[in-house]
């Protein structure tokens, strides 16, 4: 008989409040703001150059993302192939990042190649040529990707969900159609680029073990460019949710039904947001959440279920997502509503409250672990005009929030009558 190990958990030390590092900033000669996060042990850097040039600025579907993806398709001095070959040769990684609100580029590189990366980034951001042949080829490829993705119930359901909560005509909600892939030409792309990829609309976020003299180098490559955003270009469509709260898209050959339940909500700028994030964690934000326990670990209905709260510049949204066998779809939806009602009426036990507090505190440690994680965390608040102080407020809220406040938040933000419900699957 082997000796039994202990039944009792070893001592639990409170997760130390995360040390939120300072983010420094300086301006280039032309006024471009640079944020810098000095951390890490390796001689590597991440450089994000970001513009308020996301989907929200586009009048024509796909315009923002295509402009972004065309940046590396050739510039005045380099063909697309030459540019990509150089980046590869120097072991640099380029991520093009078109999003709903922002668009830009992220480079990861070895410090010794910083000058080459700066030269190429200046080329692709400020001297792209948007050749027609490359544009046509890209759009044909994107159409094929779109047609494949459209087959997935998960994609179909989230696209419909955004349409339902943000409206058919707002860029946040508009769904793509096949013909949208034939609407763009180099001149609209050039126009979008010169309207939004401007130095007065640009921010640089650097992180890693910064090379000495980085500010001078940045000034040399970017400090002498001056361009301004054409303000009148901003579109004025207001968000208006669709009336229909319940949408089912029939896909009879689907083996699983995708479920998306949620609604527009507050964003990071609202004082309730940190509390809502904590409530969301309890509901479906981690492996031990109410929804995971009920739908996966008790019933075995799904491989995964989660809830999310996200911020956008003009709004925010919360969404519960899962895929289940069609025969369990009805019961899953009922259980989701039951879990919400329980959160609105029954206070969390001290035990669950402690688990959630500690789990999120651990998550915060991970959010600031290493220079690149810090950069991403910083960007996620900078985007909303906030600073790193947001995380002090969040961390305070994690320690202080009471079960009553969670009930209050669940009642305010999870009003069942406000929730949209999208399903994609068999009849």
């Amino acid at each position: 008989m082997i000796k039994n190990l202990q039944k009792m958990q070893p001592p639990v030390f409170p997760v130390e409040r995360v040390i939120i590092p300072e983010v420094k900033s300086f301006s280039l000669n032309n006024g471009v703001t640079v944020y810098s996060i000095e951390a890490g042990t390796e001689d590597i850097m991440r450089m994000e150059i970001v513009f308020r040039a996301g989907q929200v600025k586009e009048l024509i579907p796909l315009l923002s993302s295509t402009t972004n993806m065309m940046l590396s398709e050739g510039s005045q001095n380099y063909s697309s192939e030459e540019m990509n070959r150089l980046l590869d040769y120097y072991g640099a990684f380029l991520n093009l990042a078109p999003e709903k609100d922002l668009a830009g580029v992220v480079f990861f590189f070895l410090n010794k190649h910083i000058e080459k990366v700066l030269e190429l980034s200046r080329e692709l951001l400020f001297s792209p040529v948007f050749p027609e042949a490359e544009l046509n080829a890209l759009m044909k490829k994107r159409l094929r990707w779109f047609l494949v993705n459209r087959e997935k119930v998960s994609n179909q359901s989230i696209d419909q969900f955004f349409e339902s909560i943000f409206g058919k005509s707002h860029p946040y909600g508009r769904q793509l159609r096949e013909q949208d892939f034939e609407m763009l030409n180099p001149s609209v792309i050039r126009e979008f680029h010169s309207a939004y990829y401007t130095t007065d609309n640009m921010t640089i976020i650097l992180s890693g073990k910064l090379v000495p003299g980085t500010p001078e180098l940045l000034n040399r490559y970017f400090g002498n460019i001056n361009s301004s955003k054409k303000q009148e270009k901003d579109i004025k469509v207001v968000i208006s949710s669709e009336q229909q709260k319940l949408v089912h898209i029939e896909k009879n050959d689907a083996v699983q039904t995708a479920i998306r339940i949620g609604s527009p909500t507050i964003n990071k700028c609202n004082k309730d947001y940190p509390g809502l994030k904590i409530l969301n964690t309890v509901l479906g934000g981690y492996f031990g959440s109410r929804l995971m326990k009920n739908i996966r670990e008790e019933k075995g209905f799904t491989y995964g279920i989660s809830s999310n709260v996200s911020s956008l510049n003009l709004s925010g949204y919360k969404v519960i997502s899962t895929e289940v066998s069609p025969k369990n779809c009805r019961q899953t939806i009922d259980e989701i509503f039951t879990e919400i009602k329980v959160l609105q009426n029954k206070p969390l036990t001290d035990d669950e409250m402690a688990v959630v507090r500690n789990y999120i505190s651990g998550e915060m440690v991970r959010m600031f672990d290493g220079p690149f994680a810090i950069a991403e965390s910083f960007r996620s608040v900078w985007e909303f005009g906030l600073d790193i102080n947001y995380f002090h407020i969040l961390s305070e809220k994690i320690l202080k929030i009471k079960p009553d406040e969670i009930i209050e938040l669940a009642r305010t933000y999870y009003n069942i009558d406000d929730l949209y419900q999208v399903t994609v699957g068999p009849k």
Partner: protein
Amino acid sequence: MINFKRFTLDNGLRVLVHEDNSTPLVAMNILYDVGSKDEDPEMTGIAHLFEHLMFGGSVNIPEYDKPLQMVGGENNAFTNNDITNYYLTVPSENIETGFWLESDRMQGLDFSQRNLDTQKRVVIEEFNQRYLNQPYGDAILKLRPLAYKVHPYRWPAIGRDISHVSAVDLKHIKEFFFSHYAPNNAILTLTGKITYERALRLSSEWFGPLPRRNIKERKLPVEPLQEEERSMVIESDVPSDALYKVWHIGPRKSPDYQALDLITDLLAGGETGRLHIKLVREKKLFSEINAYITSDIDPGLMTIHGKLMKGIDIMTAEESVNEVVNGLLEIDETEEEIEKVRNKFESSTVFSNTSILNKAVSLANYELLGNPELINMEVESYRGVSAEMVAEAAERFFPSSNCTTLYYKSSRKDS
């Protein structure tokens, strides 16, 4: 340079420690030397199902996740053909909870019928979600049994037939556990904010009392040399045709491994891979194309797969793929390109090693291969790959007789 120390407990548990004080966290990785290749062909998918059961409670601990969340930890696991791997990260001050949890489930599970029933349903939903409810999701299920005739790599970790998972009972589960889960069949790695002394003390305290177990002897059939090209055509309701080609390659430890890995980068690494430049950009045959090798311990596969543009004939597309692959034999065209992919490998390694979790998983894998020092030698061995070695590997592994092709055709008229 990743400095580490290594020790073995009396019960055979191998432990590797890499201290990195730039983080407040510790990553803990436990690799069990059991994968889907160790399964009975009539009961496949059990190694992966077992991974799920490992979270359902152990001898002294009713639930794995909660105590870990209580100390700010996060965890996950994966199963492949060779191994079952569990990992967690936790703030350093609470790493002892990780030792408590992992040693308790190495000691034994609570083997509850209820947990087994639930996790079977979860795994079946996972199968549905990943393989059946995705366009082209079943390609790998068709391809493996075509490429392998006898070796257990012929089924994927999820199982050869999902009914196998439904049929597993508690007796099988117990048998599986006691013949594969044991200190002498595991590798523990710790990276991050932990000293060697603390790691040694905690490992001895928590894992030391566990007994060795008799590990089921591994007797895997050797895959016979493929002598003739194989192919299969399937038709399915997908938006466009797709082409899958695989070639048998050597085992992970074979001297060709690095050359083959670089070959896949030459072919499909980023925007400037040859397949991408020639077949996506120039000839516009594919909307996307990819190439990679499996890092399987036993002889694995190199795979190329791509989705076709509208109206392109799949045989024409295949011919062009073959042309590009045959182009690898031209030594003088390759040198500068090889320098490019070698640089890219070096740079990815540097970036990957900024994560303590990546370092923990890599160290465990190199230990399993028999030499953890390889973690610091890999860049150099990739640096040593020459144009001649690329051509030699191409000549050796890419004759058509060594190739298996899956033509995944769209049944739609407008594809």
